[in-house]
């Protein structure tokens, strides 16, 4: 017999002497007798209204309330999670390139090279249902294959699947797109393939025999970009000021060497027969 059963029989007083002798050496006989004397005088009052059915119904009602409470808690948790997720995924990530060239990787492994003074904004939900970004300035996009990739600018929209292209969209400069690889749809009507260029001011697609890499060890490649815009890029990149003192609308094509100021200044002046004058450490004037 188990020890607890011996104790129960002992408490009832039905334990034989033999069984008692087995129990008592293990237990403190004084303590046992004290428990017995205390419990003998204790009385438990059972309410008259208490019966099994009553108890059962009360217990059932409590369980139902608990279940309702659990469902409400679960619903509240789900709503909280949905709200929090909605706020989080609708929040935006904004990246601005101040003076240098910044290369960033988007969540889908697409890469964007931001030229000085450019800004890119995307939602945290980027890549789930679509791939859309807000953009201003100048950027080189190397888009990973996947869902349609859309670049929204104040001057126009560019849609692609997987390709390499460059967008120039400044408030003061004409909107242009150059495609190096793949296919690009501009303004929902012009389709550019590799080695093609779109210029908003002329509203036409032009073939380029050999489109150069947009960014190389030699510098940044520009194709038919107004000289004033190239000068602005150089100003932001080199953190200098160049005062323009010419009236003609020059168009720049070629490499802008951004790694050395002297070469950069030559490239914006010599082809146009313009003269560069150094005014102070950080200020230059370019005139005809």
């Amino acid at each position, binding site marked *: 017999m188990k020890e607890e059963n011996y104790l129960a029989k002992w408490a009832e007083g039905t334990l034989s002497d033999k069984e008692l002798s087995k129990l008592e050496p293990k237990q403190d006989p004084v303590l046992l007798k004290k428990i017995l004397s205390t419990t003998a005088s204790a009385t438990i009052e059972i309410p008259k209204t208490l019966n099994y059915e009553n108890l059962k119904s009360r217990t059932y009602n409590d369980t139902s309330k608990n279940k309702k409470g659990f469902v409400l808690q679960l619903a509240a948790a789900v709503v909280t999670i949905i709200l929090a997720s909605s706020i989080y995924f609708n929040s935006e990530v904004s990246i601005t390139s101040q003076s240098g060239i910044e290369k960033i990787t988007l969540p889908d492994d697409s890469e964007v090279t931001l030229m000085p003074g450019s800004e890119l904004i995307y939602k945290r939900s980027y890549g789930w249902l679509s791939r859309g970004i807000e953009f201003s300035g100048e950027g080189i996009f190397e888009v990973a294959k996947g869902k349609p990739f859309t670049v929204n600018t104040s001057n126009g929209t560019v849609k692609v699947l997987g390709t390499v292209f460059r967008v120039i969209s400044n408030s003061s400069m004409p909107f242009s797109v150059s495609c190096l690889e793949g296919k690009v749809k501009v303004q929902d009507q012009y389709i550019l393939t590799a080695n093609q260029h779109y210029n908003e001011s002329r509203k036409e697609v032009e073939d380029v025999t050999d489109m150069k890499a947009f960014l190389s060890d030699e510098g940044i490649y520009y194709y*038919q970009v107004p000289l004033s815009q190239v000068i602005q890029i150089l100003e932001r990149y080199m953190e200098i000021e160049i005062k323009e003192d010419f009236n003609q609308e020059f*168009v720049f094509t070629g490499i802008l060497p951004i790694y050395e100021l002297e070469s950069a200044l*030559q490239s914006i002046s*010599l*082809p146009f027969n313009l003269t560069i004058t150094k005014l102070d450490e950080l200020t230059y004037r370019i005139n005809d």
Partner: protein
Amino acid sequence: MTKSLYAFGILVLFSLYSWGQTTFKTLNITLEKASGKYGIEFTFDDHFIRSHLSLNSELPPDKETFFKLLDTQFEIIVSPISSKTYVLKPYTKNLSNSRICGSVYSQLEHLPVSDTKVIMGNQIVLTNESGYFEFYPKKKQIKSWSL
């Protein structure tokens, strides 16, 4: 026999149409080819380069000879600004006293004709909305003209 004559007539008309639609390659095409051949890059004034017809011969085997051709035929000085990048500088661009310009008008309608190609020597320019055109000044005397 009549059918053959019709076919011949259509062929002649198509040839005349194609001849009228001749597209002129400009110097930027030559530069793109030269860039690929010599492994170098050019930086230039896009308007100036597109106002010149492409080189009418094959590219020379070395870049130095090509640079000389640019100098003698197009009056362009080639200056290196890095190991691979060269700037193209038109050295007679500022000769404003020898500028050649004009306007193209339709004799039938007596109205200016825009977007018409005017060729002088190796230069090719388009008339603007007022029918006006202007060539870059050159040191050398130019003899040939066409419209």
